[in-house]
């Protein structure tokens, strides 16, 4: 099915199942521990061997020699794999890193060897017997040091152009009545998902099956096959449940590649989970940024010049952190400039993490807007409303498909009690606490891509849906089931959703917040085809056919849906693909975040007191799972604002705090009551469901809202994330 004209009325509009706050269909399995994650497929097969990874001990250099004799001789050891015996490995298409070091070492904790043994304990113990001699060489680990020298990045497949210019930015900025020119920094961040990267690999002849934890199944098969130099058809990946990903499990990484190599060498199924302290320097992360923002406005607050320059680093060949994306679309202003530069760093690869580019970009831009509002002596909400635009500010002939940004701002301000905010910072006290309010905008692109599904109807009226979509905790199972139920006129318990198998029809998977809109559109297309097949089978040929309550009806004839499959299951497959609506319309999701924080006047400790997000993201397919996505984003934003930072040791070239004791993420006590309001919105340019994703929208802007609230509470502006007490303590009033 092709979607190339805006949506017209269709069966989804009945909203009997779609749009309802259904519980997660797999919730019971998860809460009772019955859902099996990658490392937990204990019965298939019965005799796995276990792998344990040895990470490179140096950040940059060469493996001079590697002696595996002692490890091989250790009890239970079946195989030891290193670059000397692994055979040639190619690169996948998405990541730039190599998953096995040797002879070159590209970054700290890159896999140097894998030990496979009968038991996990034997593998772990033998891992320390692998003797590796390294030859260290100099590397670059300091982003700041390349601030002046790093070149403008080449445009890659993601993140858009690295330089944009509209009008005369320099001239307009110079001539502006009110100006801001500040630099903001965001640190390297880890995905820090609960479930570590884990794989169980099984070879049968030249066919490879892996139970793994990965967000994009067909990218995974593509990249794993390419890395190993085998046909894609020979690889099957299975990821029914994923214990969090946040972009950190996009496609094949070291666990998959090494488990496959280990299983091949051991001629046994191999299970491998990356040990937590290795994950931070071995896997991808969100790279640190240094961002300069310049905004020029008239005295009335109208922005006339907006510029955003950004620097991040990566391994050679790696991608940029496209922080300027949001700045290009969020506010009006005739004169614009963005520029993204890229330094080469010999740290682990920087790559996608929830709202890549947009999350750190908004951390900077939305503090800048707060500062601008203060300079203009204007309310920050009002400043944003004043600079709203209904057309792409870079291409005024291209309207937004839907943009209820102002409504988000106004609703949020009203519900949050924004008018009670004292605009003068440091003035509100509650006992020993300074109290402040802050807000920020939210924006995240609304991509949608080709997505397929297979649906099967049986004689009991049960509809089974199969797609290679994944559920990383987001609720994909549930919205897939809801969509099929709505289309086929059955209740949700008559739908079986099967996900996470690379042999199922392709979807874009979980990433870029395009999963929900794309996969439901694919299910729509397949169900539309199934409806036709059912109608034909049952001999209906009228156009007024209704699928409802488990029946197919026309006029006064009603037949149970399952009757169509009396003589055998009906199986159809289709996909949804798209025309040029995304070119004609700027498709984005919008929101506004409000935060109230308290700062201890003695110690500077920061505690968020309450937060509200208002989101406009097309049709909300399931308000319960959607709310979970947004409060999850808000929680992550609290982490980004207050604590998350992978600390780089620029001498020794690695992220120092590489475990969950050192890399702090919010705990329950950091997260107060969070409220979410969804603005009623349909976006007919997206798909027949008129829905957009929102898993990443909920994160953008959050950290800035918190940082702005801290400023409002204390009067101290911190432009380096995370905002920790050591950065403003000296500026707090004396307490002794």
């Amino acid at each position, binding site marked *: 099915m092709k979607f190339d004209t805006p949506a017209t009325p269709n069966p989804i509009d009945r909203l009997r199942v779609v749009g309802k706050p259904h519980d997660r269909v797999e919730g019971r399995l998860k809460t009772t521990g019955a859902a099996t994650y990658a490392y937990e497929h204990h019965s298939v097969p019965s005799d796995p061997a276990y792998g344990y990874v040895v990470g490179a001990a140096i950040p940059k250099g060469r493996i001079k020699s590697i002696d595996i004799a002692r490890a091989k001789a250790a009890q239970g050891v079946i195989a030891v794999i290193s670059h000397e015996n692994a055979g040639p490995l190619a690169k996948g298409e998405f990541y730039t890193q190599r998953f096995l070091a040797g002879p070159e070492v590209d970054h700290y904790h890159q896999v140097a060897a894998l030990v496979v043994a009968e038991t996990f*304990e034997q593998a772990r113990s033998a891992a320390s017997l692998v003797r590796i001699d390294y030859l260290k060489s100099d590397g670059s680990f300091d982003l700041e040091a390349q601030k002046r020298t790093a070149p403008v990045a080449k445009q890659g497949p993601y993140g858009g152009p690295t330089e944009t210019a509209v009008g005369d930015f320099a001239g307009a900025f110079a001539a502006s009545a009110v100006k801001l020119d500040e630099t903001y920094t965001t640190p390297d961040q880890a995905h820090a998902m609960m479930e570590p990267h884990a794989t169980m690999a099984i070879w049968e002849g030249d066919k490879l099956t892996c139970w793994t934890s990965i967000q994009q199944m067909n990218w995974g098969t593509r990249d794993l096959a390419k890395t190993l130099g085998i046909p894609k058809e020979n690889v099957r990946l299975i990821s029914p449940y994923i214990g969090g990903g946040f972009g950190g499990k996009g496609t094949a990484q070291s666990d998959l590649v090494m488990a496959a190599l280990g299983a091949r060498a051991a001629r046994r199924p191999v299970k491998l989970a990356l040990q937590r302290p290795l994950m931070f320097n071995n896997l991808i992360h969100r790279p640190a940024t240094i961002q300069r923002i310049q905004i020029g406005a008239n005295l009335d607050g109208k922005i006339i010049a907006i510029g955003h320059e950004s620097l991040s680093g990566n391994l050679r060949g790696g991608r940029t952190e496209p922080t300027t994306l949001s700045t290009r679309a969020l506010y009006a202003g005739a004169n614009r400039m963005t520029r993204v530069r890229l330094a080469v760093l010999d740290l682990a690869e920087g790559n996608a993490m929830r709202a890549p580019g947009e999350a750190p970009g908004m951390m900077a831009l939305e503090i800048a807007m707060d500062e601008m509002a203060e300079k203009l002596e204007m309310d920050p909400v009002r400043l944003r409303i004043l600079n709203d635009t209904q057309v792409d500010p870079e291409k005024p002939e291209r309207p937004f498909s839907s943009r209820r940004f102002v409504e988000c701002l106004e609703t949020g301000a009203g519900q949050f009690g924004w008018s009670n905010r004292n605009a003068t910072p440091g003035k509100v006290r509650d006992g*020993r606490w300074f109290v402040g309010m802050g807000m920020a905008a939210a924006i995240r692109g609304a991509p949608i891509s080709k997505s397929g599904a297979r649906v099967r109807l049986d004689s009991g009226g049960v509809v089974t849906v199969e797609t290679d979509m994944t559920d990383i905790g987001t609720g994909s199972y549930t919205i897939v089931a809801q969509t099929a139920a709505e289309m086929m006129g059955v209740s949700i318990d008559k739908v079986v959703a099967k996900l996470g198998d690379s042999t199922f029809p392709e979807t874009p998977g979980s990433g870029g917040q395009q999963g929900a809109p794309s996969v439901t559109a694919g299910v729509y297309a397949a169900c539309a085809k199934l409806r036709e097949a059912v109608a034909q089978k049952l001999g209906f040929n009228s156009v007024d056919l209704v699928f409802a309550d488990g029946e197919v009806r026309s006029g006064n004839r009603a037949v149970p849906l399952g009757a169509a499959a009396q003589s055998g299951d009906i199986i159809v497959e289709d996909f949804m693909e798209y025309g040029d609506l995304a070119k004609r319309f700027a498709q984005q999701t919008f929101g506004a975040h409000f935060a109230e924080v308290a700062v201890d006047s*003695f*110690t500077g400790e920061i505690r968020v007191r309450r937060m509200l997000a208002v989101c406009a993201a097309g049709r909300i397919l399931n308000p319960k799972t959607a709310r979970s996505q947004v409060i999850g984003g808000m929680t992550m934003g609290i982490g980004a604002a207050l604590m998350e930072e992978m600390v780089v*040791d620029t001498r*020794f070239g690695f992220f120092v705090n590489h475990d969950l004791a050192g890399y*702090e993420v919010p705990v329950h*006590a950091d997260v107060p009551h969070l409220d979410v309001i969804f603005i009623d919105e349909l976006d007919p340019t997206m798909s027949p469901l008129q829905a957009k994703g929102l898993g990443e929208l909920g994160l953008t802007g959050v950290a800035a809202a918190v940082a702005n609230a801290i400023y409002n509470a204390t009067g101290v502006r911190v432009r380096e994330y995370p905002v920790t*007490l050591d950065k403003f303590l000296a500026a707090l009033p004396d*307490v002794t």
Partner: protein
Amino acid sequence: MRSFTFERVTSAQEAAAKAQATPGAKFIAGGTNLLDLMKLEIETPQHLIDVNGLKFDKIEKTEDGGLRIGALVRNTALAADMRVRRDYGVLSRALLAGASGQLRNKATTAGNLLQRTRCPYFYDTNQPCNKRNPGSGCAAIAGYSRQLGVIGVSEACIATNPSDMAVAMRALDAEVEIIDASGRTRKIPIADFYRLPGDTPDVETALSSGELITAVTLPPPLGGTHLYKKVRDRASYAFALVSVAAVMQRDGTGRVAVGGVAPKPWRIEKAEAELRVGAKPFSARLLADAKPTKENAFKVPLVERTVAAVMHEARQK
């Protein structure tokens, strides 16, 4: 993790004797610290002596009206004990500020006292660290030192003792009861229990080989207001940037020990004379010899401000 042998013991003296006689032996109690270190091969004991079978799980009154806490009393049980909550509130509060509910259920009194000092480089066997690998250098001093010590530190090591419980025990002047291989018992005041790193940061306490902790005793109740304030970046489940254990009396005198700043709970009794004057002179005296790094220099004013917070709170009660 290296392989090791394992045994359970039923008498304290047997435990101490076995520990002294067996090369590379270590006691294991809750295992919450030791097992982590073993997995990373920072500790590589060849033999583990499980002391959980010893009957050291009681909290009893002592003759002088204090409390005797068995070495195996779990942190959860200790924090919840009515006598501790009533008479030694600072200890209860400190315990509850530490780790997480699950860890406290496992963690023992002795194990908590003997958890290794905290430093991220210590936890990474590829990095230089004088404590883990004497003579290899200290990666932290010129590196990531934000969390680390500002006083009592040396050129060799600036790691901090992470225990919250010990800070409260220092404020209370607890004593550590020990038995050795010959069955001899002795008591070490908590003030003397921890060693400063000097040139030997691998030596952290006054215990000698094989010595087993049997109990910790608390003096008779001190009265006063008991407070424990732990400052950290996140609200729970994090080690202290700075913590303050205080027992404050109505007349403005008191005892104050500080955590998160030194290789041991930091208390200078003489400085406490300044408490009646205020947090500033007290802290100035307490940290007179501070040698912070650039990254952790904020801890010096933070101590002053946290002490001020505690004094402020004590006045409100």
